[in-house]
C-alpha cells in the first residue's frame, strides 16, 4: 500500500518585513505509511506547525509537493482541497480556541457530517452520540456548550470531531501541551488507543520528546525549517545521530532525579537564529558543539546512516 | 503636545480683539454681514449694517414720505426722464467729494448685468444715467415707472474712484461710503465695528462707534440684552417681546411695517384649483386668533394682501369673515372634503403659524400636510410649476418700496415666478398701474385689482407685521415701517 502522506522538498515561505522572506519550512521530505504515526519534534519556530498546516491544506506550499493519499495539494483547487480534507483531520493545541464557544458540542462534532451530507436529523444525532462515547464522553453531553467542560474534556470533543469523517490521516499539533499533567495522560492514552483501533496514520507534532517517544513509530527532528534527523523511534532515542538531536535529548528533564542528575550535559549555547536570515551551510552550526569548517560552508546532505536519515556532515 | 496646544490656545485668545467700548452702541443681529458692498446685498443683516455707511439718493422721513438725501430736489422732464439736483457738500470717508459722476457710476454699476447685482430687478427699469450738470444727474426709465422713487431710497452711492481702484472684490471687504459711520473692522461671523464719521454732513452721530454682533440664537440675543452685553436687538418674536415686557431696564420698540403676512393659495393646481375651496380656506382661517394668540397682538389686521404702509392700500375692500360653518359647506359643495393640501414651508417661516393653519383647515374638512424643506428647495418648488408649488404656503412679503406694485405684481401677476394665478383682468389692472405716474389713477387700478383678488383668493392677507426691537431703556429711537436701521437716528436719552 502506498504512503498516506508523501512530502517532497516542501518549502513554505512567508513575506517578511523588509524584503527577505521568512523561510519557515525550507526543503523538507518525508512520508507516512498507513497505520503509522510519525512524530515531528523541534523547538518553537522550527517550522513544525507550518508543516502540519500545509498537510491539511491550510497553507499553500511555496515549493515542493504534498501528496495525501496520492492527491497533490500543491496548486490544487478548492474542490480538491475540500475533498482531501475529508480524509485528513486535525487536533489543535489549545482546546479552548478549538471549539466555537457559541456552538453546542453536538453541533461541533456533527458539523463535518452535516456539511458533507453524510448524515442528518436522527441519524446525525446517533453518530454524534457514538463519537462522543468513542472518546470517553457521555452522549448527553451533546447539548452542552464548550465552556461547561474542562480542558481535557474539550480536547476529547476536538478529537471526536476530527474522527467524525474517519480520516486516513490525523494531524495532531501539540495536542497535549496545553493540558495539565494528570489530564495529559488521559488524552495520550486515548490517542494511542484510537490509533490502534482505527488504524489511522498520524502526524504528531510536539516539542516534548518524551511524549513523542510514547506515541510515535518514527520521529523526525526539525531545526530552523529543515529536517535534522528522521529515524525509527528506537534508533533515534537510543542512538541519536545528529548533534542537535543529542542536545535536545540531553535537555529534556527526566522526572527522576537519579537519571536526570546523572545525565551528561550537552549545553547548547546561544539562541535559534531568525528564519528570515538562516545561517549559511549547516543551519545548526552556530550552536553546534561539534561544528567544524565544512559545517559553516556546505549545506549537509540528507543521507542515510544506519536506520536513520541525517543531515550532518559529521554523522558517522 | 499638551504644551503646544496650550500655546496655540493662548495665542488665539490674545489675537481676539477686546470688548466693545462703552460709548459705543452694541447691536445684536441674527446674522453676520454677508456682503458689505451695498450693490451686492441680498439679506437683511447686511442691509442693516451697510446703510449706516452709505448715503442714498433719496430717503424717507419719519412719516414715510420720500425725502431728499444726496438729491435735494427732483422733477420729471417727461414720463420717463427724471432730473435730480445733488448736494455738493458731501465727502466720502476717504475725504474725496461725492460728485454726480459717483451717482451715475452707482446707477450704472447696479444695472450692469455683468456685475450680477442681486438687486438688479429692482433697478432694471432704469435704462441709463447721465451727468447733466455740475450738480445734476438725469435718469431715464424704460417706461413711465411710478415706483422709481421708492426704489431709489435703496440706492447707495459708492465712490467711483475707490471702487475702480480697489476692484469689486476688495471694495466688498473695505467699503468706503459717505454715511454717518465708517467701517473699522469686519470680523466675519463675529461682528462688524463701525466708527463715527465726525465730518458727516448731517452732523456728528451720537455714538463713537457701533458694533453689530452676529448672534443667531434669539434666546442668546435676549440674554445678551439682559446682561448688558448688547444695547439693542432686532428680529424678536412676539413671545420674546412678552417675556421682555416686565424687564425694567429694557424697552420694546415696535412699529407696524410694510411687511405683509399672507398665505399663498395655489389657484392653478391641486384641490385649491377650485375657487370655492380657496374661498373656504379664506373663511376657515381665524385671523383674529392668530393675531391675538400667536402674535400676542404684535400685528395689525388687514383685509387684503397689502399693508396700510404701502401705496395702493384700499381699506374698503371687504375681507373674508371667519366662518368655519360656511367654509365647510363650501368645501362640501366643491366635493373637496378630506382633500389633502400640501403646505410647503422652510425653517425660515414661523412654524407655529403653519401648525395653527393646519388645525384650522382640519376643522373644516381639509387635511393639510406640512412639508418642510430647506430654503433653496422650498424656493425651487414654490417658484416652479403650479404642480410643484404645493397648495399652500405662508410668506412675509416686503418690497422695501412701500408700493403695491412691489407686492401684488410679483405675487399674482401671471407669468411671475411666484404667481400660480392667471387672470387677464387682474393682469390688465396691475400692468396699467405700473406705467402711470398719477397716484389717483393708480389707486383706482389697485382698487379693482384687489376686488378681483378678493373674489379669486390666490392669496390671503393675514396681518400687517409689526417689527419688534428690544433695547436698553435709555436708548431713544423711533423705528420705521420700512425696517431701516439708521443708527444716525438713535441716541441715549438724557
Amino acid at each position: 500500500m502506498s504512503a498516506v502522506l508523501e512530502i517532497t522538498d516542501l518549502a513554505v515561505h512567508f513575506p517578511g518585513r523588509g524584503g527577505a522572506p521568512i523561510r519557515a519550512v525550507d526543503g523538507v521530505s518525508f512520508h507516512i505509511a498507513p497505520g503509522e504515526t510519525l512524530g515531528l519534534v523541534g523547538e518553537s519556530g522550527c517550522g513544525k506547525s507550518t508543516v502540519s498546516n500545509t498537510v491539511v491544506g491550510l497553507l499553500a506550499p511555496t515549493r515542493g509537493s504534498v501528496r495525501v493519499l496520492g492527491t497533490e495539494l500543491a496548486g490544487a483547487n478548492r474542490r480538491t482541497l475540500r475533498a482531501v480534507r475529508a480524509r485528513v483531520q486535525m487536533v489543535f493545541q489549545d482546546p479552548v480556541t478549538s471549539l466555537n464557544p457559541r456552538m453546542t458540542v453536538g453541533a461541533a462534532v456533527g458539523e463535518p457530517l452535516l456539511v458533507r451530507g453524510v448524515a442528518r436529523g436522527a441519524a446525525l444525532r446517533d453518530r454524534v452520540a457514538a463519537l462522543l462515547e468513542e472518546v470517553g464522553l457521555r452522549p448527553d453531553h451533546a447539548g452542552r456548550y464548550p465552556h461547561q467542560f474542562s480542558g481535557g474534556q474539550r480536547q476529547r470533543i476536538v478529537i471526536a470531531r476530527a474522527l467524525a469523517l474517519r480520516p486516513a490521516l490525523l494531524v495532531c499539533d501539540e495536542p497535549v501541551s496545553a493540558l495539565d499533567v494528570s489530564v495529559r495522560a488521559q488524552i495520550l492514552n486515548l490517542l494511542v488507543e484510537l490509533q490502534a483501533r482505527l488504524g489511522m496514520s498520524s502526524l504528531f507534532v510536539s516539542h516534548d520528546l518524551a511524549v513523542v517517544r510514547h506515541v510515535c513509530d518514527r520521529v523526525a527532528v526539525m531545526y530552523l525549517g529543515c529536517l535534522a534527523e528522521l529515524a525509527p523511534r528506537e534508533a533515534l532515542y537510543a542512538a541519536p545521530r545528529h548533534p542537535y538531536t543529542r542536545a535536545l535529548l540531553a535537555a529534556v528533564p527526566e522526572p527522576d532525579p537519579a537519571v536526570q542528575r546523572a545525565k551528561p550535559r550537552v549545553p547548547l549555547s546561544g539562541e535559534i537564529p531568525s528564519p528570515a536570515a538562516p545561517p549559511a551551510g549547516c543551519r545548526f552550526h552556530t550552536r553546534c558543539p561539534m561544528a567544524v569548517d565544512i559545517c559553516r560552508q556546505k549545506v549537509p546532505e540528507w543521507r542515510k546512516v544506519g536506520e536513520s536519515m541525517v543531515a550532518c556532515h559529521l554523522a558517522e | 503636545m499638551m504644551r503646544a496646544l496650550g500655546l496655540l490656545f493662548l495665542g488665539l485668545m490674545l489675537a481676539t480683539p477686546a470688548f466693545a467700548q462703552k460709548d459705543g452702541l452694541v447691536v445684536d443681529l441674527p446674522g453676520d454681514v454677508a456682503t458689505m458692498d451695498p450693490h451686492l446685498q441680498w439679506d437683511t443683516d447686511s442691509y442693516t449694517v451697510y446703510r449706516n455707511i452709505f448715503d442714498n439718493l433719496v430717503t424717507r422721513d419719519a412719516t414715510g414720505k420720500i425725502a431728499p438725501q444726496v438729491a435735494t430736489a427732483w422733477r420729471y422732464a417727461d414720463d420717463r426722464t427724471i432730473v435730480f439736483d445733488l448736494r455738493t457738500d458731501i465727502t466720502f470717508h476717504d475725504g474725496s467729494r461725492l460728485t454726480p459722476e459717483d451717482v451715475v457710476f452707482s446707477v450704472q454699476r447696479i444695472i450692469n448685468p455683468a456685475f450680477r447685482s442681486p438687486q438688479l430687478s429692482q433697478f432694471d427699469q432704469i435704462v441709463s444715467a447721465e451727468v447733466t450738470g455740475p450738480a445734476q444727474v438725469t435718469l431715464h426709465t424704460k417706461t413711465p415707472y411710478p415706483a422709481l422713487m421708492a426704489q431709489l431710497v435703496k440706492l447707495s452711492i459708492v465712490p467711483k474712484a475707490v471702487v475702480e481702484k480697489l476692484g469689486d472684490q476688495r471694495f466688498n471687504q473695505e467699503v468706503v461710503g459717505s454715511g454717518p459711520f465708517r467701517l473699522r473692522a469686519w470680523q466675519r461671523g463675529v461682528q462688524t465695528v463701525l466708527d463715527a464719521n465726525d465730518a458727516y454732513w448731517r452732523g456728528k452721530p451720537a455714538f463713537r462707534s457701533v458694533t453689530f454682533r452676529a448672534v443667531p440664537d434669539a434666546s442668546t440675543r435676549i440674554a445678551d440684552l439682559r446682561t448688558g452685553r448688547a444695547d439693542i436687538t432686532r428680529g424678536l418674536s412676539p413671545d420674546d417681546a412678552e417675556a421682555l415686557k416686565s424687564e425694567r431696564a429694557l424697552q420694546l420698540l415696535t412699529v407696524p411695517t410694510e411687511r405683509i403676512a399672507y398665505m399663498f393659495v395655489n389657484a392653478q393646481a391641486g384641490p385649491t384649483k377650485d375657487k370655492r375651496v380657496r374661498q373656504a380656506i379664506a373663511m376657515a382661517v381665524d385671523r383674529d386668533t392668530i393675531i391675538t394668540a400667536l402674535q400676542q397682538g404684535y400685528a395689525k389686521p388687514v383685509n387684503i394682501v397689502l399693508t396700510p404702509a404701502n401705496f395702493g392700500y384700499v381699506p374698503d375692500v371687504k375681507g373674508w369673515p371667519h366662518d368655519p360653518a360656511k367654509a365647510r359647506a363650501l368645501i362640501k359643495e366643491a366635493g373637496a372634503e378630506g382633500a389633502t393640501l400640501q403646505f410647503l414651508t422652510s425653517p425660515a417661516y414661523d412654524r407655529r403659524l403653519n401648525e395653527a393653519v393646519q388645525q384650522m383647515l382640519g376643522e373644516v374638512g381639509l387635511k393639510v400636510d406640512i412639508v418642510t424643506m430647506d430654503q433653496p428647495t422650498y424656493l425651487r418648488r414654490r417658484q416652479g410649476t403650479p404642480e410643484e408649488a404645493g397648495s399652500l404656503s405662508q410668506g412675509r412679503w416686503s418690497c422695501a418700496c412701500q408700493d403695491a406694485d412691489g407686492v401684488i405684481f410679483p405675487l399674482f401677476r401671471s407669468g411671475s415666478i411666484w404667481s400660480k394665478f392667471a387672470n387677464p383682468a387682474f393682469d390688465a389692472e396691475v400692468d396699467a398701474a405700473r406705467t402711470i405716474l398719477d397716484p389717483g389713477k393708480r389707486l383706482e387700478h389697485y382698487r379693482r385689482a384687489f376686488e378681483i383678488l378678493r373674489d379669486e383668493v390666490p392669496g390671503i392677507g393675514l396681518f400687517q407685521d409689526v417689527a419688534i426691537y428690544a433695547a436698553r431703556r435709555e436708548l431713544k429711537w423711533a423705528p420705521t415701517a420700512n425696517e431701516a436701521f439708521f443708527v444716525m437716528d438713535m441716541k441715549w436719552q438724557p
Partner: protein
Amino acid sequence: MSGRITPGVALLLALLAAFVVAAVAAPILAPFDPLRQSLLLRLRPPGTTLAAGTFLLGTDDLGRDLLSRVLYGARASLAVAALSVSVSLLVGTLLGLLAGWFRGWPAILIMRLVDTMLSIPAILLAVLTVAVLGPGFLNLVLVLGLTRWPRYTRVAYAQTLQVANLPYIRAAEMAGSSALRILLRHVLPNIAGPLMVVATTEFGLMILFEAGLSFLGLGIQPPFPSWGSIMSAGRQYVARAWWLTVFPGACLFVLVLCVNLFGDWLRDRVDPRSQSR
C-alpha cells in the same frame, strides 16, 4: 459593575422598559391628543388645571399638552434610534465580515471607504444629506443608518480578522463548511458581542443625534413631536417657559444615561478585560 443581574441592573432594565412602554403605549397613556392645539392655552406652566383637564407638564407654544407630546416624543427617539442602528449594524457588519474574511482588495476597498466616511463629521454629513433628501422620519433613519455604518465595519473587520485565525474556524474549514456557513455560524455569533456593545453605544448616540437634528429643524417634522423638536421650539421660551426645554431634555438625558449604563454592563459581560481580576 459585574456581569450578573444585580438590583441596580434590574432597575436599569426596568427604566429602559418604562421608556419602551411609554413609547408603545403613548396613545393610552397620553392624557391629551399631542397634536391638539388650543391657542388660548399657550405656555401654561406645569400643573395647570382647567376645564379641559390638568396639564401635568404644562402646555407648549401652541397650547398642546406637553406630557402627551413628551410621551409621543419617546416614540420618535426610540424608533429612529432602533431603526437607524439596525440599518447601520446590518450594513456595517456585512461589509466588515466581507473585508475581514476575504481580505485583499475587498478589504482595501471597504476600509478606504470607511476612512472616507469617518473623515467627514457625521453631523455635517447628516445635515448635507437631509438637505438633499429633505427632512422626515424615513429620511432621518436612512441618513443616520447610512452614515454610521463605518463604526460597525471597523469593529466587525478587526474582530473577524481575529476570529478567522482561531483553530475552530480552521476546524470548520476542514470539516468542509462553506464560507457562508463559516461566516454565519462560526464568525458572526462570536463577533456579535463587541458589535452589540458598539450598537448600544451608538443607540445612545443616535438618540442624541435624532434630537440634535430635530433641534436644528432637520429631523422629525412638526407637528409630530420629538424631544429635539420640542426643545428646539422651546428654546426661544427658556426664560418664560422653562418646562419646554427642561422636561424633554431631562427625558433625553435619562434615556441616554440608561442606554449607556446598559452598554457598560453589556461591555463588562462581553469584554473580559474590564472584568474584575
